[in-house]
């Protein structure tokens, strides 16, 4: 059983089990209240699931892509919960969770997952389908572009069915993590998928104050 936390869009928390599926899931779609709600949502999911912390086998962190301020809250919470509970953290690309959910619902074939990156840009990932265990096969991305450039950024764009996801479900990323673990597939790396550099400019010479 896993506690899963995803703050790549709103704040989503779930307790999942390989056999029982998503046991409890709770979310807040407001994209400005991650730090405020993440604690209550964790507690709510643990309470609703009835799963004692000691029985969890790990914590799932959604590593993005996602707007950085919110994304970080979920990763920080997942890391800290794992530290406190003495459990491992496993990391997933949240677009993979969205794709997993899509295929689990019966979809087949090439899929393009698109999510809001703010500042008039979108994050995208492309999949050629799901494998025999229902695990999505990501073939391109994740990437970051202005919407008008999606067609040129994604190779074979016209062949994909496009899915614009407004939310990311921690239940779905949790179930994906269960599948990755069961079938020995790699998890995501330790680096958050910000896909965007911090806004900084190297200062030039100080501006004159006298005319």
């Amino acid at each position, binding site marked *: 059983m896993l506690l899963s*936390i995803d703050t790549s869009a709103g704040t989503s928390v779930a307790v999942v089990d390989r056999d029982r599926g998503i046991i409890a899931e709770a979310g807040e779609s407001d994209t400005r*209240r*991650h*730090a*405020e*709600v*993440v*604690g*209550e949502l*964790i*507690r709510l999911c*643990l309470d609703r699931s009835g799963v004692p*912390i000691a029985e969890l086998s790990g914590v799932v962190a959604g590593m993005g892509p996602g707007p*950085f*301020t919110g994304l*970080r*809250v*979920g*990763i*920080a*919470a*997942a*890391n*800290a*919960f*794992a*530290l*406190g*509970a003495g459990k491992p953290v496993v990391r997933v690309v949240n677009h993979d969770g969205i794709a997993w959910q899509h295929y689990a619902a019966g979809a087949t074939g090439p899929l393009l997952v698109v999510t809001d990156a703010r500042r008039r840009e979108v994050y995208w990932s492309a999949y050629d389908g799901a494998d025999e265990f229902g695990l999505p096969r990501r073939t391109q991305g994740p990437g970051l572009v202005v919407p008008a450039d999606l067609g040129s950024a994604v190779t074979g764009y016209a062949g994909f069915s496009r899915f614009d996801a407004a939310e990311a479900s921690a239940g779905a990323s949790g179930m994906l993590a269960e599948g990755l673990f069961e079938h020995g597939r790699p998890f995501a790396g330790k680096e*958050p998928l*910000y896909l965007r550099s*911090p*806004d*900084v*400019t*190297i*200062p030039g010479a*100080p501006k*004159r*104050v*006298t005319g």
Partner: protein
Amino acid sequence: MTEPLVLGIETSCDETGVGIVRGTTLLANVIASSMEEHARYGGVVPEIAARAHLEAMTPTITAALAEAGVTLQQLDAIAVTSGPGLAGALMVGVGAAKALSIALDTPLYAVNHLVGHVGADILSDSHLDYPTVALLVSGGHTSLLLVRDLVSDVELLGETIDDAAGEAFDKVARLLGLPYPGGPEIDRAAIGGDPKAIRFPRGLSQPKDLEKHRYDFSFSGLKTAVARFTEQRTDQGGSIPIPDVAASFREAVADVLLTKALAACADFGVPRLLLGGGVVANARVRELAAERCAAAGVELRVPPLSLCTDNGAMIAALGAQLVMAGHPPSMLDFAADSTLPVTLIQA
């Protein structure tokens, strides 16, 4: 519970601080700073600071536990800075602290960063009496507080209306071609300089300003005055007397800080002044504080520098005081509040 074991988490600016105290005894104070990553930008870049907090959080907690020789399971409470500070940076600490407290089933106290600076003094050997005036000066804040009781009665007397004093040091260092952070550089450059060579302005010190801003600070005019001076010198084909400029600038900052702090002591009849924040590292600020306090018969308290700069131990110390005073833990839904008022000691 007389001596609670408390872990404090601080991420309001560019230091990831984790401290552990037992009551008023310091057990660990571990700080991971992202300062070097900001150096080329001449100031703290919030997004770079927040990314560094996320990376440093788990290793810093682990290092603090090792230094204190305790386990997470032994903690009686966790305290975390919920504001004021940089929003994105605060959120990392708040998110982590909430999850950690749930995983451990340990009470969580959301505390005020500025009051934390005052709380740092509790960890020194002798105890601070109240009330006290506290002057908290760093790159992120310049505040003058009247503390009647650490856990229940803190009043904001004044604060900067533009730049923080530490920012002024950074900006003037840049004007003089010195690297970031500016405080220690200005200190070095001022050696041998004449603090009276150039009379730089003291912000909000004119009678008309004092009416409305008796305890407030302003450093942007001072920064502009230094720029004007250096430009005029350069335009006239002269060289900039860096030691004199550095010493005179530093004198203006120290003078205005301590004039206002001691005015507050006198106005409120409080014979104590506590310094906190990274600018306390500045030699002239400390020296002038000692002179002026001695002359005014005011007891001066300056915690060790490692407890003056932003750190988790001061947050743990304040958390422990709240626990010992019987305050209930914070509700789990508190926010990271970049403008948390100082009157909210606990969120």
